[in-house]
């Protein structure tokens, strides 16, 4: 069985006296879409940058398709879009993709460029200069750029921060399609609802440590059963769907009239806030 596309082990990074990452372990499998959450300064971007060789780790190990992060083979297997990026404004969308074609050694040529621009719905903007594009269009172009050479791992740092709801939907659908093709995606985002919608797995980082990880559904577990009775709403904290019939039976046996039952789940936001302790960067 093939190993993980991205394997992060005991990763540490120190910037002077500041510990950005303090021993993070994470794996992303082929076809898996992993959301990386955490407050500003938690170490998410640092982790992503180490994975693509922009930042050197202080300790630990990061491998991309079995090759050390930063090596030519590892870089050839990934696509990356930084949170803060800029492309030469005088290049057109097509010229920018052609530049990255040459840099990546991809042989996709014009058909691949057309396909990628179509994927991010910039098919009509191939001849448009980057400087004439809105921030949202540039962000979609950045995603197309990251997809050049059919990478096996896609590292996206806040890829939808400048997008309007339609742009976000385009990116969401694109990521789902990529997952279907077996591309592994690590998605840094502050948009919990988005992560909850599309990610198979969520990792929450706070203070340079992985504080919680799991599937969105697994993390957002049962929170309470709320029963509407004749004497008002009764909340049973921590109870889940399985406990609901018993709770209702007990209430009825105790002479309560039951009008409705609701099983409440904690949202990813609740889980996140609990995990990071309300900290913001």
């Amino acid at each position: 069985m093939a190993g993980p596309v991205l394997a992060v082990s005991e990763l540490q990074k120190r910037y002077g006296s500041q510990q950005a990452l303090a021993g993070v372990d994470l794996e992303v499998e082929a076809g898996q879409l992993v959301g990386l959450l955490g407050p500003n300064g938690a170490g998410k971007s640092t982790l992503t940058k180490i994975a693509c060789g922009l930042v050197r780790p202080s300790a630990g190990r990061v491998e991309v398709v079995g090759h050390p992060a930063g090596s030519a083979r590892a870089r050839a297997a990934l696509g990356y879009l930084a949170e803060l990026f800029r492309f030469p404004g005088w290049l057109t969308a097509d010229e920018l993709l052609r530049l990255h074609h040459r840099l990546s050694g991809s042989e996709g040529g014009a058909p691949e460029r057309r396909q990628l621009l179509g994927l991010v719905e910039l098919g009509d903007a191939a001849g448009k200069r980057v400087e004439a594009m809105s921030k949202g269009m540039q962000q979609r172009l950045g995603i197309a750029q990251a997809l050049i050479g059919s990478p096996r791992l896609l590292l996206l740092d806040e890829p939808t921060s400048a997008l309007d709801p339609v742009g976000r939907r385009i990116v969401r659908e694109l990521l789902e399609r990529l997952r279907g093709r077996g591309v592994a995606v690590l998605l840094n985002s502050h948009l919990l609802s988005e992560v909850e919608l599309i990610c198979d797995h969520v990792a929450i980082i706070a203070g340079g440590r992985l504080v919680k990880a799991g599937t969105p559904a697994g993390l957002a577990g049962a929170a309470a059963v709320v029963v509407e009775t004749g004497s008002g709403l009764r909340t049973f904290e921590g109870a889940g769907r399985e406990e609901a019939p018993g709770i209702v039976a007990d209430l009825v046996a105790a002479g309560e009239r039951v009008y409705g039952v609701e099983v409440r789940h904690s949202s990813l936001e609740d889980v996140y806030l609990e995990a990071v302790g309300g900290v913001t960067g």
Partner: protein
Amino acid sequence: MNGAQLSAAATVVGLSIQEGLRRRVFLAVLVLTVGFLALYALGAHFAFDDVDEFAAGETKILDPHAFTGATIFGLAMFATLFLGAVLAVFLTLGVVRGDAESGLLQPIVVRPIGRTTMLVARFAGAAALSGAYVLVVYFAAWAITKATGDWSPDHLLGPALGLALAVAILAALSLLASTVLSVTAQGIVVFMVFGAGLTAGLLAQIGNAIDSDSLHSIGRTASWALPFEGLYTAGLHALISETSGLTGVVLQLGPFGGSEAAGPQLIAWAFLYLTGVIALAAFLFSRRDL
């Protein structure tokens, strides 16, 4: 380096040249150059005219044509070096730290091309553009001098290649500075280094003129430490290296930095220096978190 890396490196060289040609500073340097060459043609015309009248019928202890030609062409070399230095510095401004801070560098560096190849390619682009510029201006000034005063330097090609190598060294120093300094600091530091080099050359010449060995050796050591200056003074010397008599002696004390002979050791040292500066820049770039 394999074929794919070579192709990627050529792409970065092309991108650097395209980017350089699009920078406003390139247009400014072109306008300045046209202005300089026009003024130079006018000045050369009047200088040769005046010196003909001045020297007519007198005992010629100085060759007026050689004196005028070498003096004004020395000025042209100084201006060419200066404009070439401006171009070299601005073409490499912010190439590492500046571009990293603006987010321009990261999408390129994550490609398999590698940081060293990228840096060398950026250097090659800047050196090619500023070197070509220096050669064009130098030969334009020579053509003007030849046309207005019918004077040619004793050696034509050597000083031209020396100037091109000098601006390549300045481009490399600027690239090195860009790995650690912000854009503004990089520009200031490299121009200060450029000024320091020229001052060192003048010091060496003053030491020579007043027969001060210490001053001369301080100046020479400094100009070898910054070999673009040594290449420039060697170029000035090559202009008049075969001019004999008082004319030759006077011209060696030229107003835009004294001329000083240099052998092939200087060329070898300049290439070694260039390689060392680029290697150091590549090392610092490879250690830099982006």
